[in-house]
Structure formats: structure tokens, C-alpha cells
């Protein structure tokens, strides 16, 4: 797994690539939380375009960030997940609470 990020006002844009599973779930959690902290952001736009694999442990990391952000009054949006990843996101119900957008710009406008 690899994370790239960008800050747009109060929103942290995180671009995830690689595999999101048990092996990297903690790292994902810690890195995203640290980036939120450091950049004083309220919202997350999570770009999953580069994710080649996700399972329930990876999903758990995303849902955990969703909970944390919304508890503090922020928002989390998901951008461009590959078909397989999208299928898993749908089954978990996360897409009915966090929005799925086609591009980072679209997601930013919804923040």
C-alpha cells in the first residue's frame, strides 16, 4: 500500500494505491489520522483509484476514518474505485453513508 496526499482548505485528499488488507490496515489508519492532525483538516476525500485489492480488514480502516471524521462534524467522500473494490464497498453499505464520486473535484464540491 502507498498513500499520497494533498490538502485543499479543510479537506485532506488521500490517494491510496496497492492492496488494502490486514497487513496494512493499521498503517493506513495511523497515516491518515496523522495527516488529518498535522494539516488540521475536517474532511477526507479518499481516492481509491489505485487500489488493486480490498477485503473486510481494509474496509474496516475506511469505515473507522468515516466514523472519526463524522463524529467531529466532518465529511468523508470516496472517489473512483475500480469495479472490484466498488463491489465490496457496496456490499458493506458504506456507499449509502459516504458518497461515491467520479473525480476528486466532484467530491470536493460536495464537501
Amino acid at each position, binding site marked *: 500500500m502507498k498513500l499520497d496526499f494533498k490538502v485543499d482548505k479543510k479537506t485532506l485528499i488521500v490517494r491510496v494505491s496497492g492492496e488494502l*488488507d490486514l497487513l496494512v490496515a493499521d498503517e493506513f489508519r495511523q497515516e491518515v489520522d496523522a495527516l488529518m492532525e498535522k494539516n488540521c483538516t475536517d474532511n477526507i476525500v479518499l481516492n481509491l483509484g489505485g487500489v488493486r485489492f480490498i477485503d473486510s480488514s481494509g474496509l*474496516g480502516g475506511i469505515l473507522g476514518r468515516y466514523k472519526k471524521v463524522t463524529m467531529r462534524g466532518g465529511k468523508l467522500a470516496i472517489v473512483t474505485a475500480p469495479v472490484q473494490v466498488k463491489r465490496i464497498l457496496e456490499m458493506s453499505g458504506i456507499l449509502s453513508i459516504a458518497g461515491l464520486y467520479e473525480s476528486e473535484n466532484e467530491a470536493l464540491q460536495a464537501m
Partner: protein
Amino acid sequence: MKITNQIKLSIISLPENLPLARVTVAAFAAQLDFTLDEIEDIRVAVSEAVSNSLIHGYENDPNRIVNIVCTIYGDVLEITVEDEGKGIVDIFKAMQPAYSTDPERMGLGFTFMQSFMDKVEVQSAVDEGTKVTMRKEPQKAVTALAEEN
């Protein structure tokens, strides 16, 4: 039915071996006529079962062993994932969607295994271990058979 092929992969209970378990099972599954989507399904199911052995069965103890056996019978792929960990008290409850004994987890492991494989069976005994048996047949094979009849 006759066994056409079989492999057994034994890994030390380190999360580092999880990607490798997926890769090995996927390479084995590719010997049947699965679509790429079906291979993806299998990768998720294996990932869930092995993750469960590491986290729940062995409670993250990195010095144990998880055994993964893959078998082809005719057109059917069977995968068993077995640990000698702490076992499951109530298998029926454990398999319910969103049920987890770990508040940090989503309780979707068994749900994903059941959604992505044709059949999932769990045998478990407390303090002895857990064995998950999953089967899947390429959808193409099933369709071809139906058309023949």
C-alpha cells in the same frame, strides 16, 4: 469425484504472508476456467479466512501455523483454511453478518466468504482450532452443463 490436482501451503501466522496466500490460491484457481472476476472473489474469500485465523484463531501470535489446502475435483475448486487456534464458541452466531467479537472489526469476514464462494462450511472446536472449507465452480462450467440438459 476424483482429485485432479492439489496443493498445500503452510504459512507462519504473520500478516506478511497474507498477500502470498492470496497469490498462491489465485494461481492455483487459474487452472480452472474462472473469469478474472471470479478469481477476485476467491482472493477476497481466502484473505478473510486467513485473516480470521491470524487475528481470532491465534490472536496475533506470530509463531503459529495456518494450513491452506486447495483441491480441484472435476470443475470444482475447494479451499480449506485451517488453524489450531482458540476456536469458535458459537459458529452460527459467528457467521451472522456484522457479528464480531472484536469491536474494532466489521463482522463481514464470513459474509464475504459466503457471498463470493458457492459454499462455505465451518468446523471449529474451542481451544482446538477452526477449519473453513469453501467451494466454487466456474460459472461458465455451470452454464455449459445447464445448456447440455
